[in-house]
């Protein structure tokens, strides 16, 4: 009897430390954030808990009337809709190109494309701020050489979002390219040879062999990239502070500004929860699509 009980309990002792850490640093904070989002917690409430007032759903109601929040949602949607497909297409293309050769040139290119991923975002953003500088920056200098009027990369509300996307794509390509490369190297050569004998040209081989073989890594990259871009934060935080005219403000940055700059913790928590739900929904949709595809 007793040994039977032990047998059942032993596996749980192995997973317990991991579960404990997950609970302390992830699950509990999520629950606390949910609770805070129903309160008017601010700087005074932190010092004196009796000052914390339960406000029900009023934070959420207020959020959806707040133009700054609605604008940040819109901006985040643009980041996700433009950025995620761009990251996947660019990193997949680069991976396929790099995989087409084995010599040292291709090895070097792998390093070149991976480097942005291992450099610090803040340092990178500072450099890019110079590149984007309207009067001194490299981009406008080059444009001037071919007679194109200077572009307000970070100062023009219509362009600034795009500028941040370009930077973020450039930075995200490395890691995802590496994931695609690993998957590509797992595709047996004989599949391509068989397809070649079947009469498939390069494009047909890519379409019928390469892409289907990468289905799982494409799915993985899509989900992780989607989650990352929903939380788009570093680039606008360092380069534009959300400006000009809130045109680059993301939901994550909005949450930061309200929580840590204006100390409206309850309000910020509500905003972060909206983001949390959006990410969950998007991920579930992805999984469902994936299941449907596999079911075929």
């Amino acid at each position, binding site marked *: 009897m007793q040994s039977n009980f032990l047998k059942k309990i032993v596996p749980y002792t192995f997973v317990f430390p991991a579960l404990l850490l997950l609970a302390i640093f992830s699950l509990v904070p999520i629950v606390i954030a949910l609770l805070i989002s129903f309160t008017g917690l601010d700087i005074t409430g932190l010092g004196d808990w009796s000052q914390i007032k339960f406000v029900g759903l009023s934070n959420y109601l207020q959020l959806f009337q707040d133009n700054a929040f609605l604008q940040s949602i819109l901006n985040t949607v643009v980041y996700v809709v433009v950025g995620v497909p761009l990251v996947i297409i660019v990193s997949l293309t680069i991976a396929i190109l790099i995989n087409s050769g084995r010599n040292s040139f291709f090895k070097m290119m792998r390093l070149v494309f991976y480097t942005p991923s291992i450099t610090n975002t803040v340092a990178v953003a500072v450099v890019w701020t110079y590149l984007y500088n309207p009067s001194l920056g490299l981009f406008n200098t080059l444009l001037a050489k071919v007679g194109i009027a200077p572009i307000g990369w970070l100062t023009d509300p219509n362009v600034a979002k795009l500028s941040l996307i370009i930077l973020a794509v450039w930075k995200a390509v490395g890691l995802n390219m590496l994931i695609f490369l690993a998957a590509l190297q797992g595709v047996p050569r*004989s599949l391509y040879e*068989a*397809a*070649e004998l*079947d009469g*498939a040209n390069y494009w*047909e081989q890519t379409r019928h062999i390469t892409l289907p073989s990468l289905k799982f890594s494409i799915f993985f990259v899509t989900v992780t990239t989607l989650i990352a871009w929903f939380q788009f934060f570093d680039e606008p935080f360092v380069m534009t502070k959300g400006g000009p005219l809130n045109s680059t403000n993301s939901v994550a940055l909005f949450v930061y500004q309200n929580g840590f700059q204006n100390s409206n913790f309850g309000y910020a928590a509500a905003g972060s929860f909206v983001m949390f739900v959006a990410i969950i929904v998007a991920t579930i949709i992805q999984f469902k699509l994936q299941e449907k595809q596999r079911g075929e």
Partner: protein
Amino acid sequence: MVEIKLEHISKKYVGAKGYSVTDFNLKIKDKEFIVFVGPSGCGKSTTLRMIAGLEGITQGGLYIDEKKVNDEAPKDRDIAMVFQNYALYPHMTVFDNMAFGLKLRKYSEVEIEKRVQNAAQILGLADFLKRKPAALSGGQRQRVALGRAIVRDAPIFLMDEPLSNLDAKLRVSMRAEIAKLHRSLKTTTIYVTHDQTEAMTMADRIVVMRDGEIQQVGTPREVYEKPVNVFVADFIGAPATNFFDVTLQDGYVKTEARTFNLAVPEGINKVLKQAGYEGKKLILGVRPEHIHTERAFIETFPSATVKAKVVVSELLGSESILYTKVGDSEFVSKVDARDYLDPDQIVELGFDLNRSHFFDPETKESIL
């Protein structure tokens, strides 16, 4: 009608020191079943891949129906190939795997359906057309790979060790099936294997290769009965041929230690003497199945017998394999199951020198 001609074909891989295939010459006739056989690394697969167009040809000319195709893309050579690991498209159903090549070549839906159904019928795959390769057994996957070749209706089939991933029993039955398939389709086939049994049982002609060079081309009977050198005699036949270093003297061959002293049949002795081997060294090759225990044989050729000690014996059912020893020489014989003997027993063995092979010790080539 299709005829394949390989003229002085050589292959050297970029960065490799030597040639992988050297001066390969062969004419393959229409409807022929040719088997390339040899140990791993002998260049047989490389040669096949050059014919398919998957490897470039370093030197020489490859002709299909008198047309040089060295520089033609694989898809333009109209060749179907079966790969060792089947190379089935994992994300496609069995039907789509077979239909893929036809779709790319823009066949009509009706024609594709007809051809795939026909191939599925021949191969017994009709019930599996909607499955993906992962849901098939090894033998079924092999059939799909064959089906993919059949639907193409290509004039040439190439098969690269198609049976080596199957278990022993399945290999034997698939072997017969491929042979049957060739009899009904009559497609010119080049088949690569390292298994001499597959080569012997399936081939119209066998090409024995070693270190990138052709050793011998001939029918299974020819390479078995008249091996041109020690390598072919050793490689073809199982268990392998026994070789003895002997000296020819006064109509007898004897080993250095005098453990053997066998009378050479008159006719063979004459030929050997004419070739100038009297008093010289030779390599004698005797197949295990040409060493006998039957009384009748021993009484007919009393001067071609040896008394040997059994080291190991294996009973295979209808026959026994005896591993025996005389002095320093060890050799194997394949005898009737009745003559199974326990180790350490002494057995009298008669050598059928009429069916034995004599090789020059320097060149290792056959003398007769």
